[in-house]
């Protein structure tokens, strides 16, 4: 199947007054049409910057230094702002954490949805309101007609996220980027939101990139998983392969941490050491925390290389780790 999205060697940095801080250090990740991909990683690993970079949303002091984001074979990073505007919200949509902050506090929900609808089509105002009402009921908001006239502060966080999802799916979007859609929501609401998103995406054959810190969420809702660490993708695999034989020591830590929480075992699997600033030194960024690191790891950066078909990891000892021959 042809790739829908192909991110190649993406480098981005924050160039503030305190100097340049690299955040993305050569991200390679791809997605086929109709697929769902989960990107997991801890805070600061560059997940959010990555999805923003894909839509060309990084503004100074952020800077994309290198790389390509191929969507349907076209490099989005080479497009002008006007060309990108035709992509944003229509072909690729983004949902965000903290849904309430992402709604304009002074505009009624209905006006905001209509605004999204009319940004990309010549739909008449009245028809747009009718469509907005449909969208609200599609995302499970009761009494949508009344809710159109609500302001964001009158809605709960879960409702706001539903509105955001409605806006993201207002056009026949081909790729939905969901950046931590359940941050700040409680567990039952999170579940409802994720189920809803999953159903909508599947029914409309939209591809989905779900960014999350929760491996369990990714395992449940995605077909493929990409693990991000210190501004790089360190492993990509299908979800079953990943859980059966993760090939990167960091991935194995994540899996153990997640299952420990599920089985209510005492959490022994915390990752030792601090999250390192990306690319602070030569060698693998994970080497300082890695239990199976050896000399080469500290001097040379392992590349993201395939282990099997559809399974790649950036670790010199990936084969051993995947086979479970060395404890990671």
């Amino acid at each position: 199947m042809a790739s829908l999205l192909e991110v190649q060697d993406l480098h981005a940095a924050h160039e503030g007054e305190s100097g340049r801080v690299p955040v993305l250090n050569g991200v390679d990740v791809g997605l086929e049409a109709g697929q769902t991909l989960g990107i997991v990683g801890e805070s600061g690993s560059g997940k959010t910057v990555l999805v923003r970079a894909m839509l060309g949303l990084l503004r100074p002091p952020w800077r994309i230094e290198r790389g390509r984001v191929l969507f349907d074979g076209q490099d989005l990073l080479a497009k002008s702002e006007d060309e990108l505007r035709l992509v944003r919200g229509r072909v690729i949509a983004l949902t965000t954490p903290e849904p309430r902050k992402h709604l304009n506090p002074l505009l009624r929900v209905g006006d905001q949805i209509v605004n999204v609808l009319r940004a990309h089509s010549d739909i008449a105002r009245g028809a747009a309101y009718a469509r907005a009402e449909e969208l609200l009921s599609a995302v499970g908001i009761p009494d949508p007609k009344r809710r159109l006239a609500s302001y964001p502060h009158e809605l709960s966080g879960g409702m706001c996220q539903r509105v955001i999802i409605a806006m993201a799916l207002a056009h026949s979007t081909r790729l939905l980027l969901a950046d931590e859609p359940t941050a700040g929501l409680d567990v039952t609401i999170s579940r409802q939101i994720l189920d809803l998103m999953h159903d909508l995406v599947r029914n409309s054959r939209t591809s989905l990139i779900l960014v999350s810190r929760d491996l369990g969420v990714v395992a449940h809702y995605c077909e493929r998983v990409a693990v991000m660490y210190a501004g790089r993708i360190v492993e990509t695999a299908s979800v079953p392969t990943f859980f059966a034989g993760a090939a990167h020591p960091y991935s194995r830590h994540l899996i153990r941490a997640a299952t420990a929480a599920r089985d209510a075992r005492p959490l022994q699997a915390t990752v030792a050491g601090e999250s390192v600033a990306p690319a602070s030194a030569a060698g693998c960024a994970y080497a300082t925390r890695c239990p199976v690191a050896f000399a080469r790891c500290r001097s040379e950066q392992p590349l993201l290389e395939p282990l099997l078909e559809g399974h790649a990891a950036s670790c010199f000892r990936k084969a051993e780790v995947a086979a479970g021959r060395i404890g990671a």
Partner: protein
Amino acid sequence: MSDPALSPTVAALAGPRTPPRALRAFIGFARKRPSFLIGLAIVVITLFLAVFGPVVAPYPPERALPGVGLRPPSIEHWMGTDAAGMDIFSRVIAAPRIDLTIALASSLIAFVLGVVLGVVSGFFAGAPGLGRFLSEGIMRSADILQAFPIFIFALALVGFRGPGVENVIAALAFLNIPYFLRVTRGSVLQVRERPFVEAARCAGNSELRVAFVHVMPNALTPALANISPGIGFAILLTAALSFVGAGVPKPTPEWGSMISIGAPNMMTGQWWTAFFPGVALGITVLGYALVGDGLRDYLDPVKRS
């Protein structure tokens, strides 16, 4: 505060906020804020006087009555008379016509131009290319305008175009633009970093639409709060300009010029000549300030409910 073009449709479709409801909501809002009601009353009275003041005045406000110079307040002359024998009460209630015209018109012009320029300069500050050039250009122009003394500017304008109300309005509007511009710019610089602005971009809005539909309404508060003091300030400056001969010609009833005419009499004990126009000016400025505060709350949907 929502997009004015969009709201009526929502109201028509959604029901709960049809016009009578909106009016009822406004009344409910006003009821809970006595200071807003007081301000509203003052504003309504001054607006009424601006229209009917000269008509309801007991004496002709611009004619000197023979033989009654500098009379203290009495039954015939509630606020006394000035040195020329003009009835002060008649002049005080006739003055809003000129004072309010100048103050409201100049503040409105300054508000609109200042906010638009402030949004442009704040939204595009630090942006690459043309945006940055525009932003910096606006700020430097404001610096020049503020560095230039208002009185010289007004005198030049009057010298160039002759005395008249419209020249006073133009001078005051120009003077006030930089204030609205700066507060709006500062507020825009904060608002443009808020997540919903990026969300608006994500939805495919053009930069101008993001700036004026999403950023501007959220950045208006400081400029709105600045209107009422601005109106008071404009009335005071009108008086000052009249004093140096660049404002409203002398016999025209105008609080500021009445104060300056009456000031010498206060030294010799005839306090009423400057006191009553001063009180009228103070109450008016207070009224606009109270209404400004209330409107600011009303325009914020979170504080309103």
